[in-house]
């Protein structure tokens, strides 16, 4: 084992001892959220697992306000440092199963204080994200307008967005997370252009343009935040 391997092992043990957790609030009630849910199940959460985080799964029919609130406000829930998920959204809300509201603009301090939030969802970055930050959220990552993707290329779109989760799992700061994510988006856009998929590239570039986080504006929290 190299020194780096020992260091990673030490970090894993440290997180296990602290009992740090993340919560996954993933919808899968129709084809669009289901596609993203499947991708995230297969590709995202393993990164948190191997780095010692426990995963609280508020997925499928559990992606609802009551369940999520109970998890985030319970005594054990105090160990939750990261909120992530896929679901439909609007400027003032993030929804879960059957489109029911999970979070909305208002007093969310008990839910998001001292936590990092990443929502793969339409529009939540315009109002909900800054509202979360006002309520103590350390950093918010989300999209100001509609997150769009092309069927047949959905894995590329989800891969780009998932870089946010992966980098936070690695312990990166919000600023590094953004830079790495931007690089992945740009690499994918260039690869798509090179292959003549101009519309797919255009939509992916649009998604990058509407991504918001602390590196874009202080309304989205602290650039140095990490989990």
């Amino acid at each position, binding site marked *: 084992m190299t020194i780096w391997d020992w260091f990673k092992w030490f970090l894993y043990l440290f997180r296990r001892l602290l009992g740090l957790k993340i919560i996954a609030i993933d919808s899968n009630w*129709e084809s669009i959220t289901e596609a993203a849910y499947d991708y995230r199940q297969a590709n*995202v959460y393993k990164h948190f697992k191997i780095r010692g985080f426990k995963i609280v799964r508020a997925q499928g029919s559990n992606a609802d306000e009551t369940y999520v609130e109970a998890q985030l406000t319970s005594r054990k829930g105090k160990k939750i440092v990261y909120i992530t998920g896929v679901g439909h959204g609007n400027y003032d809300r993030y929804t879960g199963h059957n*489109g029911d509201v999970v979070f909305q603009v208002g007093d969310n301090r008990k839910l998001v204080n001292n936590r990092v939030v990443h929502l793969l969802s339409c529009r939540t970055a315009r109002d909900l994200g800054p509202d979360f930050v006002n309520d103590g959220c350390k950093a918010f990552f989300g999209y100001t*307008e509609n997150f769009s993707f092309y069927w047949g290329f959905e894995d590329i779109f989800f891969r780009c967005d998932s870089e946010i989760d992966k980098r936070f799992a690695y312990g990166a700061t919000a600023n590094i997370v953004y830079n790495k994510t931007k690089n992945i988006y740009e690499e994918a856009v260039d690869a798509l252009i090179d*292959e*003549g998929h*101009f519309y797919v590239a*255009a939509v992916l570039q649009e998604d990058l343009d509407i991504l918001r986080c602390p590196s874009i504006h202080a309304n989205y929290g602290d650039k140095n935040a990490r989990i």
Partner: protein
Amino acid sequence: MKPIKKIMDEKKKESKRSKEERIAEQMDLIAGFDEDGETLLTLKQLLERKIAILAELNEIQKGNLTKERIKAQEEYKIVIIQDGKPKEYDKEEAIKEIEDDTKFGKQLVKIEMRAVEFAFKQAMKQNRNGD
């Protein structure tokens, strides 16, 4: 998570059309205006006449260009999510959104213009490489 390159390699294997065919299709689509600002030109014509695209187009020209490109496509349908539910637009409906200057119409124009820009960029690159 798979690297982008690996995902793209898989897409290449799955794809029914070649990269060259996709680029050739773009060459024959309307992509800009002649220096008079009215005559529509294909990407191929723009490249032949060495006319830069998009930078000096106003919003009306961009809207007209988008409509022409949508009309020229044999099959056109786009699906967007409204209130959590997918809604499908055909050619006529998409054009109406642009004419009515709706938020969705503006988004269509933006994506179309970006696709043209990317196609232009790729065509220039190929020209430079002497393909």
